[in-house]
């Protein structure tokens, strides 16, 4: 079988065409594929649809995020559970471009987004959920009553690519995440035609993982890149270390 291990991030994202739908894992820092995002900024593909929990925060210093792809003119549409902060004083970088009409956005409740990604990965085209019934998000959309409760019809979100970050991988692409690093990553992997993973630890030989404790099976993973040590690779640091 062809090796899944790529030598660098540029090589791993080189063939991504304009117009791709890309899911980007991560919730806060854990699981966020900063290195792949940075490589995509350099690669320059345009008219992208980005699916992620957020577009990036208001905090400094900024890490590579979707808002930077927007600033770079690469994004047509974002599907996310936040397009603005809930604190009016916390203006996130994405909002400016969104309010100026330079990018489209689809705002989706977080659990609905997770389930729509899972549905894509599970061959389920659509499902019903109680979330968002009676809200602005459900206006003009199809609902149906089950057991006396109104439910909203939601559709799968299939991805062309998934960008995720994992703690460990073996050469066959079997992945393990650490603590809350898992979040959307396994769902994005399932939903994508091509899943690209930045890996924190050295890539292990096949046979190193307990078959019962693999979080994403290698059949969902196509490309692996080991993250080099800083400053060549991007690694989150503690707040007081950032302040130094």
């Amino acid at each position, binding site marked *: 079988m062809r090796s899944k291990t790529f030598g660098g991030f540029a090589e791993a994202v080189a063939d991504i065409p304009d117009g791709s739908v890309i899911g980007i894992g991560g919730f*806060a*820092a854990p699981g966020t594929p900063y290195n792949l995002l940075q490589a995509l900024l350099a690669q320059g593909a345009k008219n992208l649809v980005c699916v992620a929990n957020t577009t990036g925060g208001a905090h400094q210093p900024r890490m590579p995020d979707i808002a930077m792809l927007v600033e770079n003119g690469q994004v047509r549409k974002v599907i996310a559970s*936040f*397009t603005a902060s809930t604190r009016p004083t916390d203006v996130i970088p994405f909002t400016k471009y969104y309010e100026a009409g330079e990018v489209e956005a689809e705002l989706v409740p*977080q*659990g609905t987004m997770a389930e729509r990604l899972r549905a894509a990965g599970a061959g389920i085209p659509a499902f019903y*959920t*109680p979330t*968002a019934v009676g809200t602005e998000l459900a206006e003009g959309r199809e609902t149906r009553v089950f057991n006396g409760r109104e439910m909203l019809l939601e559709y799968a979100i299939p991805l062309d690519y998934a960008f995720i970050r994992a703690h460990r991988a073996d050469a066959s692409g079997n992945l393990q995440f650490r603590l*809350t690093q898992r979040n959307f990553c396994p769902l994005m992997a399932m939903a994508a035609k091509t899943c690209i993973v930045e890996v924190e630890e050295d890539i292990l030989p096949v046979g190193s993982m307990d078959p019962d404790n693999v979080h994403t099976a290698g059949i969902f993973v196509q490309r692996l890149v080991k993250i080099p040590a800083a400053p060549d690779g991007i690694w989150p640091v503690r707040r007081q270390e950032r302040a130094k």
Partner: protein
Amino acid sequence: MSGTQKGWDRQQMADRLAREFQDGWLVNLGVGIPTMCSNTDLGDREVTYHSENGLIGYGPVLPAGQEDLHLVNAGGQNVSLKPDSVTVHHADSFAIIRSGRIDVTVMGAYEVAGNGDFANWKVAGQKGGGIGGAMDLAACAKRVFIILEHVTRKGAPRLVPTCALPVTARGVVTLVATNYGLFAPTGTGFRVVELAPGMSFDEVRAATGTPLEA
């Protein structure tokens, strides 16, 4: 509490709601003041804190320098593990929420109506907003507790007859803590469950935008 205190501060609002938590409950705390519920001493009652990013059971925020950067709660704070903590992915985490296993979700809000509607994801005139897990939690948790200041900075009531802002969910709120006291929606207004120290019923009623029962 001193005799000169008037109303509750943020921690006291959180404490008052946290004292409603029952032994064995699975509790989801929203970003901001609701997080402060985890500081409340519940005596021998044990609750499990659920964070929608796939963390079932977590402990206090760790001090600077001791954080595990792979471990955050829904607010992005570096929390700690408990002996029975479990991590799952986002679809499994929201399976817990959607299947009605969260005994209570505590959230902030811009306004709450007496019919149990509330709004917390979009301010007036804004394009887009910040939903996160709030709509899933609000629609599916067994109980929805809200913490908010009783009035806006301009003095307008936040307990209203009908939400003017786009709602997060309809008819779901079971209990509301403000700096003026603890209130329960009645369908057509609110009932005072408890007044904060130094607050009179008439004073609170005057600051409430919808009928208030004693």
